[in-house]
């Protein structure tokens, strides 16, 4: 299996003295942290903050503002547990640098409802047992809020596109306007939110119920 790449081969198993440093590019000097001032609205309240430029929105919410509903499941944009809404659109707070959010409005799961006055989706999640350990749940719910809005705005998913703009169907006008959310749609649109407990069927049922209620309201 081994071939000769170069001197660093020794890191890959050849015995000998090696220096390990996670940072192979080697920082000569350690630059000091950089601070930045900004104003951000979270769940309707404005905060004036000085943040480290490296700070993610997720860390700002959790460590600075005490809003621990958004969860750090991977910190790499691969699980969806940190999903929040910025100006109503779902985004990943782990990959969002807080410094870039001056004057922006963020909504977290805490801003959607309270245990005594839950959001309809929150209530539906409980009723359909759309959660087990609950760790991915705030992200699932924020994502579902975003999904309902996206469908109402007529934003397609891969399923929509395949179903309604058949390949080669150039003569067909593309559907615009609100899109119905069937099961295939919900599964595809919610696939950025992983759930290891496997609560997907309950999540589907909860969102489908909220979607039906929303369509009824329109």
């Amino acid at each position: 299996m081994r071939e000769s790449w170069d001197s660093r081969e020794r890191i890959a198993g050849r015995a000998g003295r090696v220096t390990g440093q996670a940072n192979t590019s080697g920082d000569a000097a350690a630059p000091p942290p950089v601070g930045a001032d900004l104003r951000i609205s979270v769940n309707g309240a404005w905060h004036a903050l000085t943040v480290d430029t490296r700070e993610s929105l997720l860390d700002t919410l959790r460590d600075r503002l005490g809003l621990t509903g958004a969860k750090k499941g991977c910190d790499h944009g691969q699980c969806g547990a940190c999903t929040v809404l910025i100006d109503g659109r779902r985004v990943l707070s782990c990959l969002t640098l807080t410094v870039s959010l001056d004057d922006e409005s963020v909504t977290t799961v805490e801003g959607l409802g309270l245990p005594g006055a839950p959001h309809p989706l929150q209530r539906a999640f409980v009723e359909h047992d759309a959660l087990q350990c609950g760790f991915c749940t705030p992200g699932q719910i924020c994502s579902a809020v975003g999904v309902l809005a996206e469908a109402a705005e007529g934003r397609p998913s891969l399923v929509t596109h395949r179903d309604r703009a058949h390949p080669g169907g150039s003569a067909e006008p593309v559907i615009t306007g609100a899109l119905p959310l069937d099961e295939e749609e919900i599964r595809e649109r919610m696939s950025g939110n992983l759930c290891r407990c496997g609560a997907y069927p309950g999540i589907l049922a909860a969102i489908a119920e909220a979607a039906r209620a929303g369509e009824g309201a329109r």
Partner: protein
Amino acid sequence: MRPFAYHRPETVAAAVAQAGGADVMYLAGGTNLVDLMRLGVLTPATLVDVTRVTSATIEQTPGGGLLVGAGVRNSDLTAHPLVRSRYPLLAEALLAGASGQLRNMATVGGNLLQRTRCSYFQDVTKPCNKRDPGSGCPARTGDHRNLAIIEHSEHCVATHPSDMAVALVALGALVHVEGAAGARQVPMPGLHRLPGDDPSRDTVLVPGELITAVELPALPLAARSLYRKARDRASFSFAAVSVAAALQVEQGVVRDCRIALGSVAHVPWRAGRAEDALRGAPATEQEFARAADIELEQARPLPLNGYKVPLARNLIVRALADLAAVR
């Protein structure tokens, strides 16, 4: 993450001026850059946030194409009615990529400049010629199940991860860039580089150059097009192989076609040989297979990714057959 200075200029000129120093990178959606900074793969000293300088609008060009601002979010591009009707392969490629959240964040410019997801590249404790030139390529003799089969080099076997770029290569999009030396336009294919002996450079852009827009040509052919992505997980997963294809058939004969492959090479791969073989040929499954085989003759699979050859072949045939409605 290494501490960095952050600037948010208001104009392209200011952004380009600020990008003149050492260790400066542009920040747009951040979905890949922030991730790579957290991994220590990228350690910029300065970020120039370009979300206020690049256009987030989509305009029709006089020639009948579309000019897409580099700041357009992936989800906005794919929701645009003209993109959906005139360029279905692009809409589908975008929708097949990432997740709803990521598409809301990622921009057109950033999507083009994504880095490879090769696991050695992402792990700074291991050698990688792309990340650390001259350190070696452990993927070549290690885990390369999902890496390149075409035009890889002894120095790098990485693939480009973007779905959108595959569609843009098929369309022959024009990338508008601006740098200290002025503005220029880079055609696709042509933006991305093959690894050769310098895999550290993914594109032909020079340091400080900023993608400002992507121009989609008027291409009536593209109205009949699709993007097919094969992957192990049903969603939220990079491609094993993908194909973007457009086909124009007249009286049973291929008048014109566009074919591009994703996840087979260091660049989004325009299957020019297959296209050449098909123009003027009967629109039959046999001809589609023949064209695919001609394209894939140049494949040099590695020990663990030979499956990509039949996969790419089958995807090409399937895409064309679906477009020609011959199956």
